[in-house]
């Protein structure tokens, strides 16, 4: 029987109190964004944010708890924008959204950073100490190497395949420093929005596999903003080393995604992006459950180890009350399905 798991890849909106305190402490300009050597006061604020995120997820009843990534000023580009081998350029648009991040220009060889591992250690400690944490496990989040390479500017490696491989090696090194985690989400929106050129699919899937191989945890490769191209989908199922592909069933044409699964099979588990991360309309748990059942009914011959119920994008797009409501909807939907 398929296990249903309520989870998110993190990247939550800052609580409103932290939006104010952090903007007072840090400022509003490009040069004021996080550099990785923040003051004690800022570290303290983020510690409180992290604790609030863990509580939010436990209160909602999620099966997997993320660190929440409140520090990720540059969204999934964060692991690079803080890196010593990276200079940040201008502010550039984040996918097709009214959101912007600092362009990370990689100007030197990408060595080990440890920044994400450090924040994950703290989340792990919080989870261990929390009441009611017995049923929840830690999920780590990183950008997928393909998307991170697409979001960055290469001024060091000179070759696209080499750049993707270097980013993958860097991310794999980060994963090796992570505390114990049950699941690793690799966030890969660019696979849909800027897919690899025909014939270049394996470069991307090899890069993802490099990161996936660095952990014993289940790896979810989370895509967003619509359906994957057929050929790329097939490559990802076979070559990316993922335990689950994450599919967006909210944006774009979900029939295309169903077709991909019918035609090319699937990973042992699947993550279904069935709650809209970019709309304040909160889905009823019954609606979410129906969407899962509808999807599973389209592919009656597949039996999945796990189905992850997730939002289709990160949740930082939402006001905080709606982000919490979405967590609740996901957790409640797994109850309905049980």
């Amino acid at each position, binding site marked *: 029987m398929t296990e249903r798991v309520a989870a998110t890849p993190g990247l939550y*909106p800052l609580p409103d109190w932290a939006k104010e305190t952090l903007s007072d402490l840090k400022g*509003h300009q490009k040069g004021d964004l996080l550099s990785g050597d923040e003051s004690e006061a800022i570290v303290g604020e983020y510690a409180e944010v992290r604790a609030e995120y863990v509580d939010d997820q436990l209160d909602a009843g999620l099966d997997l708890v993320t660190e929440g990534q409140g520090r990720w000023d540059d969204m999934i580009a964060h692991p690079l924008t803080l890196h010593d081998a990276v200079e940040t350029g201008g502010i550039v*648009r984040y996918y*097709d959204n*009214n959101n*912007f991040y600092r362009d990370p220009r990689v100007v030197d060889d990408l060595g080990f950073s440890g920044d994400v591992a450090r924040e994950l250690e703290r989340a792990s400690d919080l989870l261990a100490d929390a009441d009611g944490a017995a049923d929840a496990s830690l999920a780590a989040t990183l950008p997928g190497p393909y998307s991170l390479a697409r979001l960055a500017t290469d001024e060091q490696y000179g070759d696209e395949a080499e750049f993707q491989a270097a980013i993958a090696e860097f991310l794999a090194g980060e994963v090796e420093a992570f505390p114990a985690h049950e699941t690793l989400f690799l966030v890969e929106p660019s696979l849909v929005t800027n897919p690899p050129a025909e014939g270049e699919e394996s470069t991307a899937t090899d890069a993802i596999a490099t990161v996936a191989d660095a952990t014993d945890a289940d790896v979810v490769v989370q895509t967003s903003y619509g359906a994957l191209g057929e050929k790329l989908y097939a490559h990802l199922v076979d070559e990316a080393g993922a335990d689950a592909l994450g599919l967006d069933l909210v944006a774009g044409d979900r029939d295309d995604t169903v077709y991909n699964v019918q035609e090319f099979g699937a990973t042992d588990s699947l993550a279904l992006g069935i709650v809209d991360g970019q709309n304040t309309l909160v889905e009823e748990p019954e609606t979410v459950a129906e969407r899962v059942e509808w999807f599973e009914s389209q592919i009656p011959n597949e039996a999945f180890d796990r189905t992850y119920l997730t939002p289709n994008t990160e949740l*930082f797009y939402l006001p*905080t009350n709606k982000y919490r409501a979405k967590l609740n909807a996901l957790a409640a939907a797994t109850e309905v399905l049980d």
Partner: protein
Amino acid sequence: MARNPAANRDQFRPDDHPNDAFLLSTVVGSYPKPKWLNRADELVDDPDSKFDASDLEEAHDDACRLITHEHERAGLDTVVDGEMRRNEMVEFFADRIDGYEFNGPVKVWGHNYFDKPSVVEEVEYDEPWLVDEFEFTAGVAERPVKVPITGPYTLGFWAFNEAYPSTEELVYDLADLVNEEVEKLVEAGARYIQIDEPALATTPEDHAIVGEALERIAAGIPEEVRIGLHVCYGDYSRVYPEINDYPIDEFDIELSNGDYEQIPVLEEPELEPDLALGVVDAHTAEVESVAEIKRNIRQGLRVVPPEKLTISPDCGLKLLPREVAYGKTENMVTAVREIEAEIDAGEIDLDDPLADD
């Protein structure tokens, strides 16, 4: 198709205009708020303060009077109150339209947030949005008053859509409301309306939706009313020449920021509405010299003849220090009047306006 800008342009020419040539000078709208007004906006929310809503209204009136006169002192042919009563371009209108609700701020970038509203039911027109504002400003102004309104495409796409099957349908409903507001403004005496659609720049592939929305806005509006469209920070090759089909009198864009690299886009085919050209940068704190602004104005003459050229800053000036905003506006008007005199004197080759530059 474009409206008939020649039918409404002359009413903005001041009686004492010194030159034969007339380049209409205007502003996009927003202007730095005096610091005391920001304090007043905060004070009214402080439960310990005696400063109440009617005090705030008085403060807003004072600020609108002040900035309208500041625009007149700079010599502008048409003026705006600097949008002193408005907080943010979507929030202000969403607050006044039934069907929107606010849930809290969302991130734009870094620690910059925007109170992005949600449309939770069909949008409806309740009280007029801008008629009081217009009547006040027109009452204190010597010069004609322009009214900037955030356009329906931006009001729709910069909100969460919970209620409509598609955001396109929401945009058309909003366009009908904007049309109702424009009718009321016209009834109150407004003759210069500017629809602001910055969201078009981020999704130029939606130009047909903006076009249909403008058709609804302009429906039934007489030709003596000038309707402008302001867009900023876009790639205009992706919306041109489709712009020529829009029912507008004037197309207002920010080309100073990009050093006029996009001017050739507009040269072929001929631009049908008048061009309102940004000639000072809204995001640099240095006041451009009159000579530099004159060079920028000549760029506009590559696209349209003088009688179809309007001159404005790139965008709203509200993020600048106030003295810089004033300096830019004043130099802009000086440059406009000097260029007009040079045109009168035959010193500018209108077929090759950059010739002796």
